[in-house]
């Protein structure tokens, strides 16, 4: 399994790097950190290349590499990666035609995992999806600035687009808190079960408390919600974990957002709907991403 962590160089992204680093370390997964540098207008790109060559002549990092170096420090700090012995080349500037200085820095994790720091240039979302396609990742982690109020409506669109279009699981890491446990939601579908199976080993490895949450839209269907929760509990316990069960009554998205406040992570399954439906959806997962305050993991 490979995790792709997308950073935008901000402080919020650093929390997300720590969080995904912890998961990678606990699970022994490979991790890549990706920074996508915005592409300048075609009118200026060749001038920028000249400027970058000059920076190279002066032994200065080309823009974006500093974010990756910071990510490296964080990963070493939380013991995910070890530094290579001094003298061995650890940064390799690979050539990508037309882009001088597309970069990969390669570290080796403490258990031999591969840690790759990668720099791409272009439209953020396109490049992230392209990286996922060629790199065969199983989980994308992306930071979100965790704005409140009005600002919320104008931000988070990158995270949202990735959540919509990614072919794999996506974790939107915002407002990362301490150790208050994971909230696994279930709607009784196969996808929900897969979500439980996906998250259980991670919860065990991170030693996180697990709560299963099921929402009944009306009071009359509370029994069914409870039944769904029980089935999820069964799966979790088969994987060697104990967990609490909780049932909420009301509109699913709101209930989940409310309940999630006291948890580290809320786990949702992507609705298994078709492309057309996905296009028009104001689905539960997306609402939780948009209005919730907790990190969200959408399992695919």
């Amino acid at each position, binding site marked *: 399994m490979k995790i792709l962590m997308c950073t935008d160089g901000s402080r919020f992204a650093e929390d997300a790097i720590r969080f995904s680093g912890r998961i990678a370390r606990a699970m022994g997964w490979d991790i890549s950190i990706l920074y996508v540098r915005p592409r300048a207008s075609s009118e200026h790109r*060749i*001038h920028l290349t000249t400027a970058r060559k000059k920076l190279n002549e002066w032994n*200065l990092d080309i*823009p974006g590499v500093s974010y990756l170096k910071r990510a490296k420090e964080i990963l070493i700090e939380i013991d995910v990666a070890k530094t290579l012995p001094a003298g061995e080349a650890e940064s390799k500037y690979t050539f990508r035609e037309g882009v001088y200085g597309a970069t990969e820095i390669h570290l080796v994790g403490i258990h031999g995992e591969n840690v790759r720091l990668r720099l791409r240039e272009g439209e953020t979302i396109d490049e992230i999806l392209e990286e996922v396609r060629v790199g065969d990742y199983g989980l994308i982690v992306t930071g979100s600035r965790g704005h409140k109020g009005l600002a919320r409506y104008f931000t988070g669109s990158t995270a949202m687009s990735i959540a919509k279009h990614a072919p794999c699981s996506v974790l939107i890491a915002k407002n990362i808190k301490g150790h208050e446990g994971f909230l696994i939601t279930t709607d009784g579908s196969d996808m929900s079960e897969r979500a439980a199976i996906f998250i259980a080993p991670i919860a065990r490895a991170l030693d996180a408390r697990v709560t299963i949450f099921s929402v009944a839209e009306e009071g009359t269907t509370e029994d069914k919600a409870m039944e769904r929760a029980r089935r999820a509990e069964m799966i979790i316990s088969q994987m060697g974990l104990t967990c609490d069960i909780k049932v909420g009554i009301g509109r699913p998205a709101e209930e989940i957002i409310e309940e999630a406040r006291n948890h580290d992570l809320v786990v949702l399954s992507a609705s298994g709907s078709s492309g057309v439906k996905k296009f028009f959806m104001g689905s539960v997962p997306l609402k939780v991403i948009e209005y919730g305050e907790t990190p969200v993991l959408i399992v695919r």
Partner: protein
Amino acid sequence: MHYIFQIIKRNRWIFIGLMVGGLLLYMPTPEGLSIMGMRAIVIMVVSIIFFIAEPLPLPGVALLIAVSEVISGIAGPTETARSFMSDSVFFIMGSLMIAAAIVKQKMDKRIALYLLRLTGSGVGRITFGLVAVSALVSSFIGQHTVAAMMLPVGMTLINMISEDTSKKRNLSALILLSIAYGALIGSNGTPSSGASNAIMLNFWKEMFDVRIGYLKWMAYSFPLILFQVPIFAWILLRTFRPEVSEIPRSVEKLKERIRKEGDMTPNEYWVIGILLFTVFLWVALGDRIGLGITSFIGVSLYLMTGLVRWEDLNNGINWGIILIYASTISLGLNIKDTGAGEWMAKSFLELISPLGIDSGIPLLAAISILTIILASVISSGAVVGLLGPIVLNMAQITDKSILAAGFVTAISSSFAYMAVAASPACNIVYSSGYLKTSDFLRGGWKMIIVSILLLLLIASTYWRIIGI
């Protein structure tokens, strides 16, 4: 289905542009405007939309301008091709080649060393020095080259100041913006400092057969630079109050590092020598054999001496930008030839005459502001290429000096101090990652106001005295 939707979404600006164009063509041609003139205006409007929204790489827009000029029947294929080329385009090409030859050498380290020897370690003096040196060098070899050469100097200084980013926010902005604004100030210093200058020279020559020599241009434009340099440095220091006022340690370290590289090499002397020789030729022969042809002599010398290889020029020059400028020159001339320029000039004057700014200095101010607005979204050369004929027509109609109007347009086109994306210099320093877009806004508006006022002051006094 989804795929097609994606294509439409990605190309929405193409559809919008084409729809706007179609709509305009469908509208009745206004009185006093020929059909060809109308078509030229439509091409201009759609091109501006494409230049701003960039639904395809800008050189592609240049190609489309050629295509539409032919398809619309404004000109035949051969005439269109010919209109893409003139001595001014040669001049733009040659200047870019000379700049590429210079940027290949390590002149940046020499300049940095001499600069720091003069300024010492005071932040105020360094700011002034950076603005002045960027302006001076950019006057001869263009803002993109200077920005690329000075950016590493600035970044090295910044890196050496302190590890803690928060302690040098203002200082970083100060140093980098000094470079960018300095480079912008210089970009009208001589005809060779920017394409917009070459394009304006082209219009004067093609439309009125007025020729301005290299030295004469400098006589008109340099006074503004002399005022701008100290005032900009002062404004920058006031706007981005530096966290420390002396950075002796960083300066020493930087000087130390450059000294290690050793003395100037024979190659570097040759590079400077050929540049000076070329400038001399521009001054001495530019009038007679054309600035473009003259610049080719310099380029040939660089190639003969092996100071630059052809690959460096092929890959280091933005040939697309040459296409873009060539296409705007072509379109500009077609706008003039079809009478569209005159019509637009008249319409614009009618529009602003109620405001009482349709003549004299107020008119120049209006032209300047219009230019600055456009130059903040598309590149300065393209602005001059598109606005040039209209502005010169306006000057002719109102009996204003075409030289004054032309200089105001050309010079104002580099006043894009607030926009990151419009000028190569701002783009290059922004790409360092040390600046925020808001930094350009914080300082930029002051620069724009000061520059307009200075420009109008010079236009109404100095230019009148020396007689334009």
